[in-house]
């Protein structure tokens, strides 16, 4: 029997505190993935009055099975690495909020972060490290059938597709990993890829090639997911001939990449065409005192180790910004 224990969740030295609306924070970090947590450690060590708002400590790392490219660990599972990150942050007294997400930001000498429950937090700087989330296909039937055959987490939901037929949409690392997890249990897996080849790492493509119950549809896209209460079929278009055909299936796993969690900042900050926040080499956005780090930004290559480095940079940049502000 396996146990994915997060001992850090229960750490006795819990020093997370509640936010107070009357307090003026030096910095508030939005997001607690690798970038946000690293920023938190740097800010606390610099002695800043710091707050951290997040949906999930660990961000995408918490949903990752194994990590083999974060230096210091030849192999570590996602839960364990998050635990270690959390422990390092929790040695400090930091204000923490995980129940209510951020709704919007207001810029000014003193900045305001409005939470969805209506609370308004005041801070001199903001570090946005809100990461990314799974992208949806945005086709008919998708949202209605979530949890009824449409899925985004293969390690969570693969057990419900034992001896069934499933489609995996996307030929990048997450798509091929999902196809591997599903090929172990499903009767048949069809991987649909928009391009004419898979873009996943070779090591994963080779692993998937070992399964005999997997077929591939290159240069095809899904245009609709059909079904009454549950997924029954998918409409699939050949990108060259534009012909659409219907395929029977029990499930559709959508793994077409990620979108930045940046909508709460869209009125305030400049973004690229992918809605990633534009930052310079100092993690500085187009607004003074607002910094961004990690997967939510335009910085190329989304990796844990890069996000950590960016988080550190954003924290140091925020610190030096604060030092250069006139004393009140």
């Amino acid at each position, binding site marked *: 029997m*396996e146990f994915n224990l997060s001992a850090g969740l229960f750490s006795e030295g819990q020093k997370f505190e509640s936010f107070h609306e009357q307090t003026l924070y030096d910095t508030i970090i939005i997001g607690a993935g690798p970038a946000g947590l690293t920023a938190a450690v740097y800010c606390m060590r610099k002695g800043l009055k710091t707050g951290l708002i997040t949906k999930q400590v660990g961000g995408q790392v918490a949903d990752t099975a194994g990590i083999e490219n974060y230096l210091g660990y030849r192999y570590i599972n996602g839960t364990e690495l998050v635990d270690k990150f959390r422990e390092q942050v929790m040695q400090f007294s930091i204000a923490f909020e995980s129940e*209510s997400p951020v709704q919007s930001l207001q810029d000014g000498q003193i900045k305001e972060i409005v939470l969805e429950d209506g609370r308004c937090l005041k801070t001199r700087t903001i570090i946005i490290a809100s990461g990314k989330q799974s992208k949806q296909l945005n086709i008919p039937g998708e949202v209605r059938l*979530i949890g009824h055959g449409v899925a985004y987490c293969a390690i*969570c939901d693969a057990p*419900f597709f034992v001896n069934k037929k499933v489609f995996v949409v996307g030929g990048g690392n997450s798509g091929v990993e999902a196809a591997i997890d599903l090929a172990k249990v499903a009767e048949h897996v069809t991987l649909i890829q928009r391009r004419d080849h898979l873009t996943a790492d070779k090591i994963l493509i080779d692993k998937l090639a070992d399964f005999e119950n997997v077929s591939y549809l290159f240069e095809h896209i899904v245009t609709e997911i059909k079904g009454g209460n549950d997924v029954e079929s998918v409409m699939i278009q050949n990108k060259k001939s534009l012909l659409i055909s219907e395929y029977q299936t029990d499930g559709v796993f959508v793994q077409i990449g990620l979108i930045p969690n940046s909508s709460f900042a869209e009125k305030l900050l400049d973004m690229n065409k992918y809605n990633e926040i534009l930052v310079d080499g100092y993690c500085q956005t187009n607004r003074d005192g607002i910094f961004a780090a990690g997967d939510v930004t335009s910085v190329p290559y989304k990796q844990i180790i890069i996000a950590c480095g960016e988080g550190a940079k954003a924290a140091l940049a925020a610190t030096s910004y604060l030092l250069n502000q006139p004393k009140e």
Partner: protein
Amino acid sequence: MAIFDEKTRQQLKTVLDQMKNEVTIVFFSQEIECQTCRDGKRFVNEIASISDKILVEHYSLVTDKDKSDLYGIDKVPAIVLLDKDKNNTRMRFYGIPGGYEINSFLGSILAASGKEEAIPKPIKARIDKIGKPVHIQVFVSLGCPHCPNAVMAGHLLALENENVTADMVETSTFNHLAIRYNVSGVPKVVINDKYEFIGAQPITAYLDAIEKL
């Protein structure tokens, strides 16, 4: 072979050392037609061997009918947590809480032991108002990282209001229930067989559904 290796045992010990008061794990099993009952029994016994504050009571679903009726147990393996005065906390686990669910199991044991969690006042007021019987079932798979949060939210409601009973239901053990409740994505939360939602939602989503009952 032991259920927990030495490293996990040590980690469990650091967590369980934080228990405030005693907790009783009431474990229900049956001799036949239960493939996971034997492992379940070893699981609870090993957990109890790690902390002096954990007591275990073993019952049979069939022959100890008074007990299974008392706690409303209808399938096995099942775990019910009791507080220091042996009061039912209404936090139940159907199936062994392995994989990621070890976290919800530990969280609920600490909660049952009296380790308090700060609940924001407006939420607490809504929980206190629940006046009708509420049964929350949280369907999980053991490889699901978001599922423990969904279980713990349900269990918190059960602990805070005696009208609420909350279950973790492990879907590979209770496959027939996964089929009956049409579970093909987890966590799936079903409230009084009337309302359901998918995903680890904040506690307000549970309260919204409960207030509509």
